[in-house]
């Protein structure tokens, strides 16, 4: 029986009311008195030396207040990188400076060179055109294979190579190679995981404001993690005490990773507001977002699996070139390494796994996390490879997976690539998938498609991800420069309402509702008595923000710990009021009871007593009822599942239509099933977009060809089907108090291989047996070309 409130209930989202009535407070809706407007002049070329930058005419233009160049940012640090990877020889990665305005050289189209501040946004934009910018063009480095070739032009002259790091992980290469040499069969796959643009619907905005009396630097910004931005901006860029920076992110209109990072514009508006003594606001338009938001994916990979004669995986090895772009972004080096290599065992008990990744600088927009961040890249190559292996071994794609799944009695399971999976049941989600996707009815549906001249295919994938980022010690051992904890503050107000501050932030996930469900459940109060506050570094507790499906597993756990402390203290107060021993007090559904008696007192009375402590154990207890907790997870969490996609291919045109998509996920315990399903839907939508439509393309000069929604194909309502989403297979996480795993990225991780596997299946069944792989996006022209390539 579904619950109607608290943990497990599909509570309607309270934030929806303001969003549905036009009352949401997004950054561009916010303006400050006396505010000026900023516009960024960006490099029109991918690679070059700035030989002249004359701003005099622009400075004299109507309404212009100031033009900033790198001369104005000379006293501050560059944008810091939060992760240090070491190469196979032990050397730390190359870490060239990432200036907030280009210093002498531009590294990608869109690289910020100057910022104009004027009375209106139009005046700033008009004046930027009057800046004389001469750039001596240098040969651009666009393609990764060219970038690592001898004699390539260099993105950073000072480091003498375009290889940022040459990383190896897992089983030593020689051990793995020895297994390959003796294996009954080896399957090899070369593939590209194409570059994507996150494209949250709200473009980025940054608004700086400086108070000369308090010396407080305020930054209002579109961020998934305002506290983290405060740390980076104060300690690493400006070099000022953290408490003199306040970062606020009100309602955030989507992020998908792209609003994690510390961006140039955030620094610039703060500097400008201080210099001008008035607020300065920058708003990106969509074209500028394509040129300045950090981009995602962009791997070129060869992956191989060695098998015995029965299709058991004996070893895997994979070599990847990962594009980092023209600068190191905040988490750039972590994505293709720690968040990718560690997932390369997948759901399988492969004994030997070797992962090699070269991080490559190119003259393109910097690359960083996009929904899933490294884990989709791992899952895609692995699940495409497994499908190809099944075909080569004459095995059913479901059967080859089952044959290699880690079994429930093998947990905790240590993989050869550094992770210890705590719990899971991969056959259970596969069983559920076979049921909900109606595999049994496929042949009939295929015949129906064939009657209409269409080729139907069924593709499956399995996935596992490491979420709940991150155990601080593990992150540190892997090169992380920050902790992975989260904190929460729970204040019970005198009249019984509860305010909860969390260091995580919502950019669409609905934390105001779901986190309130947790606290309401624990305290036995109605959900509407609990308010969740986030998004302001000054009022909130410390925290690291929302990404990596961590908010519930880490932030929610901190909320639980703080609420437990509240209950523990309230119990002492209740014991005093009930004149009983503390150990005799039980707490259930909002009532404290002396066990075995009818003596009871409700939570509200206890809360009031904490603040009106006339009858109170002052000698042993402080008044008030407010507690804080920090939570550092003991391990990652490991959501896992199985996905299926059915497609139709039109053999006349090569066009792929997605007929159905089904997901069977194990997210551990569920707080709000409605919200969880919504997260999976959205991830699948993005995964179908990657599989069939989206592609971020540069030409040979490094010019971005897909720089608008006219050119970058975003999935629309008629490009995707209804989804069947099941999360009834539950193996609760063993190490956090809620038994939760995280659900924000799964859909985007598990879906691309399911779609591509379905296309290959359709072509194979349709007689095009020579087609064993097509790179994403599987566009009509690519399918058509593959069909004709026989």
């Amino acid at each position, binding site marked *: 029986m579904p619950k109607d409130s608290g943990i497990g209930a599909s509570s309607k989202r309270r934030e929806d009311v303001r969003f*549905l009535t036009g009352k949401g407070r997004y950054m561009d809706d916010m303006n400050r008195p006396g505010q000026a407007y900023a516009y960024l002049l960006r490099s029109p070329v991918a690679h070059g030396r700035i030989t002249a930058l004359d701003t005099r005419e622009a400075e004299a233009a109507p309404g212009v207040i100031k033009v900033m160049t790198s001369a104005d940012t000379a006293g501050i640090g560059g944008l810091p990188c939060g992760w240090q990877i070491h190469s196979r020889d032990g050397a730390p990665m190359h870490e060239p400076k990432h200036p907030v305005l280009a210093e002498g050289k531009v590294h990608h189209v869109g690289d910020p060179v100057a910022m104009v501040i004027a009375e209106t946004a139009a005046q700033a934009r008009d004046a930027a055109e009057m800046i004389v910018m001469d750039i001596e063009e240098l040969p651009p480095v666009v393609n990764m294979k060219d970038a690592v070739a001898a004699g390539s032009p260099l993105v950073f002259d000072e480091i003498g190579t375009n290889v940022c790091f040459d990383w190896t992980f897992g089983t030593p290469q020689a051990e793995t190679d020895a297994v390959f040499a003796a294996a009954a069969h080896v399957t090899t796959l070369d593939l590209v995981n194409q570059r994507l643009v996150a494209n949250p619907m*709200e473009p980025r905005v940054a608004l700086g404001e400086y108070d000369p009396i308090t010396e407080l630097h305020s930054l209002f910004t579109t961020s998934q993690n305002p506290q983290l931005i405060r740390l980076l901006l104060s300690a690493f860029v400006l070099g000022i005490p953290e408490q003199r920076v306040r970062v606020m992110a009100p309602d955030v209109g989507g992020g998908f990773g792209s609003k994690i990072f510390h961006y140039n514009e955030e620094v610039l508006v703060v500097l400008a507001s201080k210099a001008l003594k008035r607020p300065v606001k920058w708003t990106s338009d969509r074209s500028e977002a394509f040129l300045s938001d950090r981009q995602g994916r962009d791997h070129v990979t060869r992956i191989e699996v060695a098998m015995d004669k029965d299709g058991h995986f004996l070893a895997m090895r994979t070599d990847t070139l990962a594009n980092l772009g023209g600068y190191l972004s905040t988490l750039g080096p972590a994505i293709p390494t720690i968040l990718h290599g560690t997932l390369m065992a997948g759901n399988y008990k492969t004994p030997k796994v070797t992962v090699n990744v070269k991080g490559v600088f190119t003259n393109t927009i910097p690359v960083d996390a996009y929904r899933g961040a490294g884990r989709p890249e791992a899952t895609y190559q692995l699940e495409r490879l497994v499908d190809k292996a099944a075909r080569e071994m004459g095995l059913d794609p479901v059967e080859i997976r089952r044959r290699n799944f880690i079994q429930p009695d093998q947990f905790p399971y240590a993989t050869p690539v550094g992770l210890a999976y705590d719990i899971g049941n991969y056959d259970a989600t596969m069983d559920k998938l076979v049921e909900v996707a109606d595999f049994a009815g496929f042949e009939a549906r295929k015949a129906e498609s064939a009657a209409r001249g269409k080729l139907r295919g069924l593709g499956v994938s399995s996935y596992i991800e490491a979420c709940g980022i991150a155990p601080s010690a593990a992150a540190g051992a892997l090169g992380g420069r920050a902790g992975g904890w989260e904190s929460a503050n729970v204040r019970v107000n005198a009249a019984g309402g509860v305010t909860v501050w969390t260091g995580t932030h919502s950019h669409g996930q609905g934390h105001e509702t779901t986190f309130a469900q947790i606290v309401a459940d624990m305290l036995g109060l109605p959900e509407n008595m609990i308010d969740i506050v986030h998004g302001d570094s000054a009022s909130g507790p410390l925290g690291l923000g929302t990404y990596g499906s961590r908010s519930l597993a880490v932030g929610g756990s901190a909320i639980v710990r703080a609420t437990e402390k509240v209950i523990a203290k309230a119990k002492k107060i209740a014991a005093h009021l009930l004149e009983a021993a503390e150990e005799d007090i039980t707490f259930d559904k909002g009532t404290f009871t002396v066990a075995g008696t009818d003596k009871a007192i409700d939570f509200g009375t206890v809360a009031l007593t904490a603040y009106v402590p006339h009858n109170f154990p002052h000698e042993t207890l402080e008044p008030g009822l407010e507690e804080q907790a920090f939570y550092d997870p003991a391990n990652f969490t490991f959501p896992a599942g199985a996905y299926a996609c059915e497609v139709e291919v039109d053999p006349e045109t090569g066009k792929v239509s997605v007929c159905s998509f089904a997901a069977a996920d194990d997210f551990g315990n569920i707080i709000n099933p409605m919200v969880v399903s919504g997260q999976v839907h959205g991830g699948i939508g993005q995964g179908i977009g990657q599989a069939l439509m989206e592609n971020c393309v540069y030409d040979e000069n490094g010019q971005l060809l897909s720089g608008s929604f006219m050119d970058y194909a975003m999935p629309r309502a*008629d490009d995707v089907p209804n989804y069947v989403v099941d999360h009834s297979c539950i193996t609760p996480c063993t190490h956090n108090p809620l038994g939760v795993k995280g659900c924000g990225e799964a859909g985007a991780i598990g879906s691309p291989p399911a779609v591509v596997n379905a296309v290959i299946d359709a072509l194979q069944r349709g007689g095009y047996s020579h087609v064993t792989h097509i790179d994403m996006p599987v566009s009509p022209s690519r399918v058509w070309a593959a069909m004709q390539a026989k």
Partner: protein
Amino acid sequence: MTKVTMTVNGRSVSGEAEGRTLLSAFLRETLGLTGTHVGCDTSQCGACVVHVDGKSVKSCTMLAMDAEGASVTTIEGMANPDGSLGTLQQAFQDHHGLQCGFCTPGMVMSAAALLAVNPKPTEAEIRHHLEGNICRCTGYHNIVRAVLAASGQDVSALAAE
């Protein structure tokens, strides 16, 4: 600058506009109606859809001056007179048809325009009609369910949650 007068959400309003001022900018910056959002600069995303004389319009494709004398409805005008959510808005909440909420005003206005001319649209008709509105969060599933539900149709056939 020219004075522009129009009826917005039933009230006569006027303000100054330049020749280049878009209706979206006039609504947001001059009238302070920030529920109309701007998500792109190529008239692709549909976050800025409003109704002009009963027809849905991407307000970034129309100059404020061209709306002189027109009757404009924005998301701020869609609630019931008592302030409670209108039927379509309520369906979006009931069926989780929004996540970050940024595309939502345009999505609601676009769907309302469909229901005005087609009170019982099929799922395919809804998906086709919303082709000009991009949502990056929901994968569209629950938006389609919300519109079906708002039109009084049974959505149980579309997997719950």
